[in-house]
């Protein structure tokens, strides 16, 4: 990996170079697969660190294994590959040229912490500013200068420029022995020349507070599936202990609301393809963590494709997980207990059921994260429309199609080949 030097270094490699936009698991995969063939790759990420959404996940389904294991391998591959140049806090501003000869303007946001940072942690101890920790989806706080997480790569501290007092305070700079902090940085634009470009800009969670009936943001004990992942993670807000946000107590009756906004013309008309498996996974680890937990999952269809069927069987064999066909249309509060009542209806049969919960998990779908560039066309749901992209420009992963990690990575690997064909 070539880093520290922010101007494109021309290392040895085949062809004309490939730009990969997005440092989540799809972008990392595209970049590595192309670089390990022998091509030069510039990998850019808008945040100061790589890993995207999978770095936030506690476990992958159906193996219930930690995503960090694969990230560790991938970060090692990046570290040792001289053909990959990593640029963090970078976004694409403008693209000109055509297949084989693209000129790309990148905007580099100041990070204020340079690569001399050793992640020793002295700065964090003196930082007076607290902020909502976005990595933990606001479930806890961090300082304005912080190590995003234990696996953060590049492994260095990050400053939240929206809250940092910078020169007004300067305490972290004073205590840093390595000259790693500099508030004098300003944004820069750099130009790079590449043969092809892959957008792997990923997804964001659908803002489920748009659905008034589901009361997200109204009742504190209604959370999203991604919040559940952070809570369950060993480096999450409670070191992996799952609690009710309202009072810190362990929940006992948990209801999962599938298709919370998905397969619904008013919100997301598509199926995100992962939320069923995610909820089953979460139901499993919840019942494993606490022998008193009972889980009910309201679903429309259980979509666990291929070999994932075993995983469904495993969940069905768990006496404390109840799978019920029905779409939750409304959640209300049970006044006396403060519990929530989820009201579900099966659309085809019209049958109504309701269930009481002390924690509700909304299985919320994916919304594509798409770079606002003229070269990128989208379909009616906002996903990148791969067929409409001009030659030499490609999309990989969840900005193109809502899908699970392994499907995204097959796509990312194949897209690396497409990028090579254009850059050769």
């Amino acid at each position, binding site marked *: *990996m*070539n880093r520290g030097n922010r101007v494109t270094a021309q290392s040895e490699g085949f062809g004309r170079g490939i730009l990969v936009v997005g440092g989540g*698991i799809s972008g990392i995969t595209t970049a590595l*697969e*192309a670089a*390990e*063939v*022998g091509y030069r790759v510039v990998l850019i990420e808008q945040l100061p660190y790589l890993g995207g959404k999978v770095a936030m996940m506690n476990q*992958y389904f159906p*193996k219930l*294994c930690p995503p*960090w*294991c*694969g990230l*560790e*391998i991938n970060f*090692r*591959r990046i*570290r040792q590959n001289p053909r990959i140049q990593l640029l963090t806090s970078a976004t694409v501003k403008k693209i000109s040229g055509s297949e084989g000869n693209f000129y790309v303007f990148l905007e580099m946001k100041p990070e204020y912490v340079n690569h*001399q940072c*050793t*992640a020793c942690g002295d700065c964090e101890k003196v930082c007076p500013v607290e902020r909502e920790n976005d990595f933990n989806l606001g479930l806890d706080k961090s300082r304005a200068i912080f*190590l995003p997480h*234990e696996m953060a790569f590049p*492994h260095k501290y990050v400053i939240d420029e929206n809250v940092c007092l910078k020169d007004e305070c300067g305490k972290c700079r004073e205590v840093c*022995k390595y*000259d790693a902090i500099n508030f004098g940085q300003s944004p820069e634009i750099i130009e790079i020349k590449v043969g092809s470009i892959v957008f792997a800009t990923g997804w964001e969670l659908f803002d489920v507070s748009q659905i008034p009936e589901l009361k997200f943001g109204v009742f504190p004990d209604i959370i999203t599936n991604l919040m559940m992942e952070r809570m369950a993670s*060993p480096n999450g807000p409670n070191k992996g202990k799952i609690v009710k946000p309202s009072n810190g107590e362990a929940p006992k009756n948990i209801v999962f609301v599938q298709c919370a906004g998905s*397969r619904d013309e008013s919100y997301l*008309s598509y*199926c995100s393809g992962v939320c069923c498996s995610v909820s089953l996974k979460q139901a499993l680890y919840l019942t494993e963590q606490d022998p008193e937990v009972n889980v009910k999952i309201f679903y429309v*269809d259980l*979509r666990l*494709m*291929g*070999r*994932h*069927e*075993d995983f469904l069987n495993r969940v069905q064999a768990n006496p404390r997980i109840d799978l019920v*066909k029905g779409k939750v249309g409304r959640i209300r509060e049970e006044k006396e207990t403060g519990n929530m009542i989820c009201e579900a209806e099966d659309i*085809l*049969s019209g049958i109504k059921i309701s269930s009481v919960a002390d924690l509700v998990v909304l299985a919320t779908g994916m919304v594509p994260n798409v770079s606002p560039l003229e070269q990128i066309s989208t*379909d009616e*749901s906002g996903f990148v429309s791969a*067929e409409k992209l001009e030659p030499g420009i490609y999309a990989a992963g969840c900005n193109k*199609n809502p899908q*699970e990690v*392994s*499907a995204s*990575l*097959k*796509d990312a*690997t*194949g*897209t*690396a*080949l*497409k990028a*090579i*064909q254009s850059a050769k």
Partner: protein
Amino acid sequence: MNKEAKKIGVYVCSGCGIGQSLDIDAIQSVASENNDISISRVHSFLCQKEGKEIIHNDIINKELNSIVIAACSPRVKTAEFSFDPSLVVERVNLREQVIWCNPPNEEDTQMLAEDYLRMGIARALVDEQPEPFISSTLNSDILVAGGGISGITSAIESAKAGYRVLLVEKEAQPGGWSSRLLKQVPYSDPFGTLQDPIIHEKIKELQNFKNITLLTSAEIKEISGQPGEFTASIFNNNSIIEYKVASIILATGWEPYNAANLIEFGYNIHADVVTNVELEEMAKSGKIVRPSNGQAVKSALFIQCAGSRDEKHLPYCSAFCCATSLKQAKYIRNLYTETRVFIVYKDIRMPGKLEYFYKEIQKDEQIFLTKGTVSEISEKNNQLVVTVKDTLIDEKINIKVDLVVLATGMTPGNSEDLNLTYRQGKGLPGLKYNFPDSHFICFPYETRRTGIYAAGAIRAPGTISACIEDATGAALKAIQCIESTKRGESVHPRSGDISYPELYMQRCTDCKRCTEECPFGAYDETEKGTPLPNPYRCRSCGICLGSCPERIINFKDFSINAVSSMIKAVHIPDEFEEKPRILAFVCENDAYPAFDMAGINRLQYSAYVRIIPVRCIGSVNKVWISDALSQGFDGILQIGCKPGDDYQCHFINGSELTKTRGENIQETLQTMMLEPERIRTEFVEINEFNRIPEMINDYLETIKEIGPNPFKEL
């Protein structure tokens, strides 16, 4: 072997609190215990510009060939501590695994740091920088087995990247199953209407590539060799021709589940019960009629998951049948405006944008979707009566129809069609249900036969779109393997590693352990059982090194001697000091980072443990265990990643091997008259750093209970 004399530079960093927590002068003096150390220095910020310059200057002026850096974890500051690739660089982790997990300025913390430096120096004295294995007979061609949608896609995509392809199809025409379709389920925006099968375009496109050779009515008789230099013998036109290829894509597709097994759905009993494959044939011929009498179909019923998601038949979901039935329902509705079509399903599985197609189908008021299970099919008045139970309204219903379509699933083709001459078998090892799929979510193209990548429906059941995507990815991996092989580099997961096992054959006893235990089938063997290594099949995990009782398998930078020297470098206090010593072999990819993260979180655990990272827990050789016990270590931990069905070992069976080899090790303990508890195996996931203190301290308690190792005094 003419070994260059070692000239070692030792650099101790006192930054990040190391200097405040340890007696640095005492640490530095460890370096003077050894005569091969040319220079040792302490610097306060070794990773910064000045520190790096000092090391660079020493390398030149003192002609160093090995560097020992005692600073932070080898997982960080890698770029800063990268030097000329011909140098051996050994990182000693004084930060994450010493000062961050132990109290400062205590005797035990100091002893730990000094031992780690001794171990680092010992390793640097033995390690050599590997040089890549380069064969002179490498080629760059790709063999694609199977000329269906996946194989054709792989061939075209490889050819577009400039590679020559040999495409072998057993039938007289290319195209496979997808060329028999009337229409394809929507695969591009707006995903609303049926599309023409994409295969026909692809077959045409295939003919445009001069660098693709298509052999039809052809059969693979034998494949031998290794990536970069496979020899494939192919039977075609009544003769067998040998082709040299560098990598292989296995895309031999699928077969429909045998409907003859589905007597419960009346197949072969009632003439008007057909499979989805048969319905497609009818549709393609332009005539969908009742097979019993050739008359029009006035009503039809699709049974989803016919023999799928069913322990008696196929336990898995084939992932294409829902969409196919909706498509075929549309065929029927297009032919007959009055016909009612029922679809009885468990779940309608139309993920992603296929949902749009599902919505289109739902607009047709003559298509009825019902959740339920078909319990019986009978015939009455020249019609089929389908009994459906477990419906949402909990009633048993009888539906009378003219035609029943069974949505049957896919079974994988046989990967043994490759006819590999490998010692471990002719095909790719199958995962569950015999699909040679990847076990890993993060690495969908991980393969157990290096240079051979499965693609499409043989690997996992799915739609044509999924096969196309998969086949493109497999082509990239086949190309990547060719290029990595040319550089002498290993492919995933140790991609870029140029080291490979070297065997001192004079001492080989033909015990076959290496040829049996290699997870990637890298070793063939002679009739006598003598191993025949294939370095390009090797993934450098070191499991063969761990397996060899004669200790004849070594890598330049990972050897029996290197680890034994590290073990012997540790100072073992005598039993009266009451400072037990525990040696921990830890998996480099999961447990080692977990120890680092325990340090990052400043979790404290005993300073009596000495960690040696290994490529895989399966690479631990028994001799290291007896070395450690004779040396006086009181206990040994082997910490690997999770074994079992959901194993996390990227070398497949590394953790599993600790079980089978365990008995062998217990025998060693018995011969040494030692307690079985002196060795313990633990499995740690990378994110389980919170578990580490308890795990270490708990083992220490066990060791304290059984008392010191009696070999200490010897």
